[in-house]
Structures are given as structure tokens and as C-alpha cells.
């Protein structure tokens, strides 16, 4: 088993990686607040997760783009826009849009919920799988913003006054807010919990910080 700052009865700084005795409250090297495990983190994860899911609903109901070509005006939601592309034969772009705006956000919600639940209730799952899922969410999370940027670029570029114009719809706002909340949810997650859930039950990491550090010391003799 890998030795951790916690199993050695110490606390590691998440900002600068310095190691201090377990009672230390603030890192003298970088000034960050120290916690062996952040037990408030899961509450925050769920808080932002819920807001992200709530904002994702209007993002799909409201129009994302208001397009006007000559006298023909149309408002499309994300899914309508993709289906329209599909009927016009742009299968590739339609699939990319459906993946980026529908499949990826929903997968993100599912993965964050799964991570939080497996860590919270110690459900069967390996730390390897959890780590891979966490890395995926961390990496992909920011990229969902690309949809909002594309709408902004199109809107600022396609301004032919009378002939054609593209205006962003209110769904762009819902979508941006949803991406930001989901990023905050993933960033709130204390990634060190990913590996703790594989430890034996008596080292439960989510109890009060001082109590369970004492438990770790009792149960884990010095190693290495």
C-alpha cells in the first residue's frame, strides 16, 4: 500500500505539496489552509452539481441561436439545430454538436455523481477507475465552453444587417452557467478521497478530521 501523508500522521499541502505535522492549520511555505481530508468538499460538490443540472434544463429548452436570412427567421434549441444540420446532410457536424452539447454534459453529471457516491458510501469500485473518471471530468469540463464561444464568434461575425444575422439565444447563458457550475463541482472534489475509499473501514476518511487521524495512527503502525 502506498504511504500517504495521512498514513504517516502528517498533513500535505494541496497547493505547494509541503508536509507538516498533522495539527498544523496553515502551510508556512505557501499560506494555504491545511486539511488532511476536506470533509466539506462533498457537500460543495453536490451543491454545485445540483445547480449545474438545474441550469442545464433551460439550456436545452430555450433557443441557442436566432438565425435570420432575408425575411426567414428561425430560433433553434441545441437539439433542433443539430437535427436541422442532420436533415441538410451535415451528418458529421451534427454528431459533433450532439456529442459536445448533449452527451458530454450528461456524462459529466453522471461521472461526478458516481464519484461522489462511491466515495461517500464506499460503494464497490476501484481507485484506478475513479482516478481515470476524475481526470476525464477535469480535462473535459472546460472544453464544454467551446459551444458558447462558437455561438459568440458566429454572432459577432455574421452581421450582414438586412441580409443575414445570427443572434445568441438565452440558452447560451444557461449552457455557460451550467458548464461553470459543473466545473466548480469537479474542482470542489478533494481528489485524495479517491484513494481513501480503498482503505479498510476503520480508516474512514469522512469523519471529523482529528478523530479519524487518531484512528489512522492507532491502526497503522509506521511503515516503509
Amino acid at each position: 500500500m502506498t504511504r500517504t501523508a495521512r498514513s504517516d500522521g502528517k498533513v500535505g499541502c494541496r497547493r505547494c505539496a509541503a508536509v507538516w505535522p498533522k495539527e498544523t492549520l496553515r502551510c508556512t511555505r505557501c499560506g494555504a489552509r491545511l486539511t488532511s481530508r476536506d470533509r466539506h468538499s462533498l457537500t460543495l460538490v453536490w451543491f454545485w452539481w445540483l445547480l449545474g443540472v438545474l441550469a442545464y434544463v433551460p439550456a436545452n429548452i430555450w433557443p441557442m441561436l436566432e438565425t435570420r436570412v432575408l425575411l426567414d427567421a428561425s430560433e433553434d434549441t441545441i437539439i433542433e439545430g443539430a437535427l436541422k444540420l442532420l436533415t441538410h446532410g451535415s451528418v458529421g457536424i451534427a454528431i459533433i454538436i450532439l456529442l459536445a452539447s448533449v452527451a458530454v454534459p450528461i456524462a459529466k453529471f453522471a461521472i461526478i455523481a458516481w464519484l461522489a457516491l462511491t466515495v461517500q458510501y464506499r460503494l464497490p469500485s476501484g481507485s484506478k477507475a475513479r482516478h481515470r473518471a476524475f481526470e476525464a471530468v477535469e480535462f473535459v469540463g472546460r472544453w464544454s465552453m467551446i459551444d458558447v464561444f462558437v455561438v459568440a464568434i458566429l454572432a459577432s461575425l455574421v452581421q450582414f444587417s438586412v441580409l443575414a444575422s445570427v443572434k445568441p439565444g438565452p440558452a447560451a447563458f444557461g449552457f455557460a452557467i451550467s458548464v461553470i457550475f459543473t466545473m466548480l463541482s469537479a474542482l470542489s472534489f478533494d481528489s485524495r478521497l479517491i484513494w481513501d475509499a480503498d482503505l479498510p473501514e476503520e480508516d474512514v476518511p469522512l469523519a471529523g478530521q482529528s478523530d479519524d487521524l487518531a484512528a489512522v495512527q492507532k491502526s497503522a503502525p509506521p511503515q516503509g
Partner: protein
Amino acid sequence: MTPNSPPEQIACPTCDAIYDVQPGARLSCERCHTRLIDPEARVGLRLLLVSLLSAALIFGAVTYPFLTIKRFWMTSDATIIDTALAFDGPLLFLSIIVLALILLLPALRLALTIYVVAPLVLKLRPLPLAKGAFGWAERLRPWSMAEIFIIGCVVALTKIIAMAEVTFGPAFYMFAGLVILLWAQDKLLCRYSLWKALEK
């Protein structure tokens, strides 16, 4: 450090695995592969130059047109600021978010990094609040989305290429250069060495 004192320890910020620091040796976490110490990426002149050049490119990218579109007899230019302010009326709030993500936060991170790194490279004492400044530069890292914006441009281009003639303006190439420099800056920065330097 005296020869008899115990070796310095370092805990992986991602997974809490603990390691002894071997002076001058590269160290990555065995469990989660986080880069912990990179002796070649000492806080040095290269990092400072890359940061200063990035700052110059941001200024350039703001002033020149980004994309130019032609249809029939009409031409329309878009600068980065135009793009960021594409949302008006009740969506103005969204404009502010976009402006922050693609321009303000990358610029702020660069300014903070230069503020922290420049005195170290010039062998001077760190400026006041340098620790807090670098802490913020690190915290803002996921929110700096210049590279996502560049890919967004390419996507937008493929969407309208059928109905109009679109060309990249000089700012596009400056911004693309900026994205590469920001990536290099990240690789050139050993966070462990920087925090150690600020500690003194």
C-alpha cells in the same frame, strides 16, 4: 539543511502519496502520475521571457481583427473584443463571462506570474504578497480558456465556410501563438521550485 536532518518530504497534492525529496532529482507521483518536481524547469529566465512574450501577444491580439468574412460585396471584421461582446441586452452578463474566460483571466494570470517570477529571476527579494499572487495564478488556471477559444474559431469557421468566404486575421495567428506559449510556460514552471524560492 544540516547533513543529519531528516530528508525533506513532499506530499502529492492530488493523491496525498508521500515521498522523500532527493536534491536535483525529477519526481512524479507513482500512483497518480502528477508531476511533482522537475529540476530542469527551474524558475528561470526562459520562464520570464515566455511570460513577457505572451503578454505582448495578448496586447497584439486584442487590437487586430481576428476573423474576416466576405459575402457578396460586404466585408465584416471581428476582433476578439467584438466576439466577447456579441451578447447584448439581457445577455450582457454572458459577454462579461466570455470576455473574462478568453482574455481577462489569461492576462491576469500572466501578470501575476510575471510579478512573482521577475524578482526571483533577477535575484531580488520577492515582492510583497508574492505567495498570495502565485496562489491566485494557480487557482485561475482551469478558468483560462484561450486554447478552447482558438478551437472554437476553427469550428465556427467550418460552419460558415459554405455560405461565405472567411479568412483569419493577424490576431488569430497571434492568439494561436499565445496558446502555444501558455502551454510552454506551464511546462517550464516547476511549482515545487517556485514555492521553495518564495519561502526563503
